[in-house]
């Protein structure tokens, strides 16, 4: 039986929609939750919150820098404040404000970037966020989360709301495979091992978790037993799980819909170097930008799929021998 036999990977909702649903539920259970948006409420799904709680929704217009600092002011006054936009906009246009009005004074703001990665498709590179994890991780004291599916996104957004620290949550535009069932427990900072295997570990975040699970089958047929880890919290990264995987499988592949130079991969490599050095390979976006097309065309052209993950794993296995 295939290693991932227990995961049907049926297409579910986009993580941005799960984020919107989680916000709505947070709004119902806590009058202290407020939301700021920059003219993308329909795209980020904050419109669900806006419709139910208009007095707690702050429309900032197309002005992300201002939105981040307004959110910081609300948070500094004791609100559980969320600011949301496309990841490319809130992180890049709001970075200075995230640094000086949120990270440095340790303000408890929740930042959500939707439409991350290249899977947005048609809109092209100006809207594609392939550096957000690197930027968010470079903000001192930030917790950085990249959920793989709608179940984990819903749970992690709710958990982030009650965390007393600034948080960045990365969400995607397109519908993604559902991995988890409703009874799954999620803890910020604690990764989830989805399959076990002795030969190699694939560590992934976001939509690449499902692709990693698909690659497990392909590799199993070739006699390679793969452990898959969903590293939904990129900062603080789950050091124990990484050190254990390095020691027990001797090879690690990291896959992500992000620049490999600044994403999860380099953070995993740091832990591996500090604990149990082993063979590592990195899969993701190289030092270039993608282009327009349907999400499927773009993901195929830029090798963001199970086949490419499997090919990377084979490279790692060759080096391991």
């Amino acid at each position: 039986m295939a290693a991932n036999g227990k995961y049907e990977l049926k297409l579910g909702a986009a993580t941005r929609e799960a984020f919107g649903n989680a916000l709505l539920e947070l709004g119902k259970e806590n009058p202290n939750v407020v939301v700021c948006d920059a003219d993308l409420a329909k795209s980020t799904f904050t419109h669900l919150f806006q419709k139910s709680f208009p007095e707690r929704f702050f429309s900032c217009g197309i002005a992300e820098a201002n939105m981040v600092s307004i959110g910081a002011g609300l948070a500094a006054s004791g609100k559980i404040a969320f600011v949301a936009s496309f990841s490319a906009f809130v992180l890049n246009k709001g970075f200075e404000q995230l640094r000086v009005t949120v990270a440095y004074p340790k303000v408890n703001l929740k930042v959500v970037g939707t439409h991350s990665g290249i899977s947005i498709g048609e809109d092209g590179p100006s809207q594609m966020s392939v550096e957000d994890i690197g930027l968010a991780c470079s903000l001192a004291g930030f917790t950085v989360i990249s959920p793989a599916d709608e179940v984990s996104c819903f749970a992690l957004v709710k958990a982030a709301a009650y965390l007393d620290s600034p948080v960045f949550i990365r969400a995607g535009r397109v519908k993604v495979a559902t991995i988890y069932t409703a009874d799954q427990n999620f803890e910020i900072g604690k990764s989830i091992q989805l399959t076990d295997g002795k030969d190699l570990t694939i560590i992934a975040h976001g939509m690449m978790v499902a692709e990693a699970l698909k690659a497990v089958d392909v590799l199993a047929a070739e006699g390679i037993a793969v452990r898959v880890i969903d590293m939904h919290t990129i900062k603080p990264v789950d050091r124990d799980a990484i050190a254990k995987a390095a020691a027990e499988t001797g090879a690690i592949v990291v896959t992500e819909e992000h620049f490999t130079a600044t994403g999860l991969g380099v953070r995993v490599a740091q832990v591996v170097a500090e604990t149990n050095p082993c063979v590592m390979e990195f899969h993701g976006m190289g030092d270039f930008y993608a282009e327009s097309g349907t999400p499927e065309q773009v993901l195929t052209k830029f090798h963001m799929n199970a086949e490419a993950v499997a090919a990377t794993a084979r490279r790692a296995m060759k080096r391991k021998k």
Partner: protein
Amino acid sequence: MQKTSNVRELEQICQKVRRHIVTMITEAKSGHPGGSLSAVEIVTTLFFDVLRHDPANPTWAERDRFILSKGHAAPVLYSVMAECGYTPVETLNSLRTIDSIYQGHPDRRFIPSLEASTGSLGVGLSLGLGMAEAARLDKSPTRVYVVLGDGEIQEGQIWEAAMYGAFHKVDNILAIVDDNLIQLDGWVKDIMALDPLADKWRAFGWHVIEANGNDVTAVQKAYAEAAATKGKPSVFLAHTIKGKGVSFMENNPKFHGMAPTKEECALALKEIG
């Protein structure tokens, strides 16, 4: 602390604050005297007459909020907060030295009663609007005061905030522009002119108050007019003199970011009295 509306008493506090500013920057051998001295009446009158605050209870939820968005003028804020009793007066001269609570720019990690850590220009008005919105949501009487530099409002984020404040009719905020006409590289009019400044704010939907920002009575009047203005945000264009109170620093771009020598300090203290 003892609050007062008495002009003579406020002027005496201003004199003390000016002495602190000159002394602490001289001791530190670096800092920004010009823009600290220009804002003395603005900040002193706020803390000693206008702000609803309590140094003994700095986390009082319904307190007014003060943000020094032009964070390089930290010495004026430190001096006034110390005189209020938030922080020790005795250690003001440790400004900019290692382990001092008086960091180069205001830092909440060292002085938790600061409402914001500032120093990177352009962010304070947005922060203040967020605090003002939180207060309105809580039906709190809190008012928010944000001091901006005139050079600072060349930053685009200020105008994003200006749009927001008027559109959302945030009337529990007052932006105060310390309009001292000089920025680091020289006169504002030669670097990136702001004229017509009052018209710009009016066009953005703000109630504009213009007055002499180095005159305590005029400053008191401006604050009262702002508090009485409902339905729109207010901005106080405070016409000030950079380096006010020390003749050789007044209107001298050199003293935007340069510390006086010991000799200059002695001269300055003699002038201030």
